[in-house]
């Protein structure tokens, strides 16, 4: 048996391997991870695009379909970025597979980057397909494509971090679904996906400005159709600051091996 103990070490190979594994993981169950959210978003588009889209207008100069599509794209990006990191890491913890990673030379920064990039890819893939489907119902002016893409990336990055944090603190699968049902979905729905917060009576409009998802959705819509309740600077500033906070939190937890190493 040829048994050469001296092997060349490629320091970044652990990162690329983990990234590949995370992508393969969601691709292998693509009906659940890609198709299902796309069908859900497609149903929203059907309701708000084909039925109500041309009959309603809550912002002058835009159809309701044009108004609602950026929010639906962002909803797909946010939900799926969160779902990818939270379910993958929590399942690894729950089923014990995490020890396979803990004994390898994968460093904490590589760990976070691999999980984050795979989650961003899934979120942005779902968002892109939702946008493609939406072109059947309405055409968006794409006022500032670069800022739009940047905002989508920022949203997917932010919710990938949140997914990591949720997976580390969660005690059961129920906890993870509670984050989605009782935190993310209400914040998305109340964050201006279906209406501009400027039409809300006081004090609801002010309350909505405390919703962090409002800035993501509003900034993204602003970039796509040229209408926003707030400026790019505020939207990017607030969202960027929150993304940094979540990243530092996730990095601290993973660096310490909190609830990962006994």
């Amino acid at each position, binding site marked *: 048996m040829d*048994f050469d103990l001296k*092997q060349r070490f490629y320091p970044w190979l652990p990162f690329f391997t983990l990234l590949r594994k995370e992508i393969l993981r969601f691709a292998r169950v693509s009906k659940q991870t890609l198709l299902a959210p796309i069908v859900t978003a497609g149903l929203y588009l059907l309701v708000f695009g084909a039925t109500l889209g041309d009959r309603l207008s809550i912002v002058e100069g835009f159809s309701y379909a044009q108004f609602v599509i950026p929010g639906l794209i962002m909803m797909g990006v946010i939900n799926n970025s969160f779902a990818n990191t939270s379910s993958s890491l929590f399942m690894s913890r729950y089923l014990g597979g995490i020890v*396979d990673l803990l004994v390898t030379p994968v460093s904490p920064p590589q760990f976070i980057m691999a999980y984050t990039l795979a989650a961003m890819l899934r979120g942005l893939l779902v968002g892109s397909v939702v946008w493609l489907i939406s072109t059947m119902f309405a055409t968006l002016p794409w006022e500032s494509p670069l800022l739009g893409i940047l905002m989508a990336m920022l949203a997917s990055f932010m919710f990938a971090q949140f997914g990591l944090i949720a997976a580390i603190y969660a005690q059961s699968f129920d906890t993870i679904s509670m984050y989605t049902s009782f935190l993310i979905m209400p914040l998305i729905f109340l964050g201006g996906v279906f209406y501009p917060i400027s039409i809300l009576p006081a004090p609801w409009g002010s309350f909505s400005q405390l919703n962090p998802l409002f800035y993501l959705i509003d900034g993204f819509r602003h970039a796509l159709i040229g209408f926003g309740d707030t400026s790019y600077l505020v939207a990017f500033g607030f969202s960027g600051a929150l993304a940094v906070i979540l990243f530092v939190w996730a990095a601290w937890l993973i660096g310490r091996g909190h609830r990962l190493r006994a």
Partner: protein
Amino acid sequence: MQLYIRAMNALVIENLYKSFDGVPAVKKVNFTIAKGEIFGLLGPNGAGKSTTINMIAGVVRLGSGSITAFGYDNQRDYRHTRRMLGVVHQEVVIDNFFTIDQALKLHAGYYGVKDDPAWRQLLIDRLGLRPHLHKVMLKLSGGLKRRFMIAKAMIHRPQLLILDEPTAGVDVELRHGLWDFVREINRQGTTILLTTHYLEEAEEMCDRVAIMNHGDLIALEETHELVRRLSNRQLRVWLVDPLSEMPAGLENCQPQLKADGRMLLLNLPADINVGTILAQLCSQKQLKIRDIETDQSSLEEVFIQLTGMNGGANGL
């Protein structure tokens, strides 16, 4: 000097301590494993073996103390130490998303090593995984999962292979095959650290054994020396003519007369060998010997003696 010891050995454990919720699991343990050695870490359930192994592997954080693998500190230089270590965990750990072949390829990459198809194929063949290569993990039997875990731990050619109860729940044939494989890779230069509940396997496999109990290291020496030193060797001497009274001068052997004086039972201390005592009986005591029987404790009996356990009732 200490630096030299750390660099020259496969593993140096110094004052290793760990507690969970204030309850000590490993108490200031020290031991060293030489390069190329097969070292057994034994102990009853809850002795601290798996906690020690998990600290070495990086799954459990150190309470205090240090672990040095091939001269590298496993906290500071963890990327060095982890790529030198291969770990077969006690619990079956598999990823149900992948087949054996896919998982092995991925696992090499986690260690920063490019997939070596020849080596992968060799492990697959040696561990009898070829017919199951493209099955998803969920569909593998318990024994196959164990074999896969060993292949996974070996895929990056570790210099120190840690086997934590690798044969638990595994059939006899696979156990023999596994130990043959472990001996072979050991001959090729891989150091082995193993824990097992099958003490006859440890006795057969290990150059040295350490025994842990309640988080303490209570014995550490060469396997045969430990057995020899602590075993209760008995010599039964069957006599041609029955004795009516005990011969003098055998007090240090706790002599007893049995079978109506036809059998002399002696408990031999570690420093007295059978030849010496027989010569003494024949020449000095003028006894005519018909037959002799000897009996020596196994590692299992030594283990029970040291840990104060009474056999299988405590989960041996």
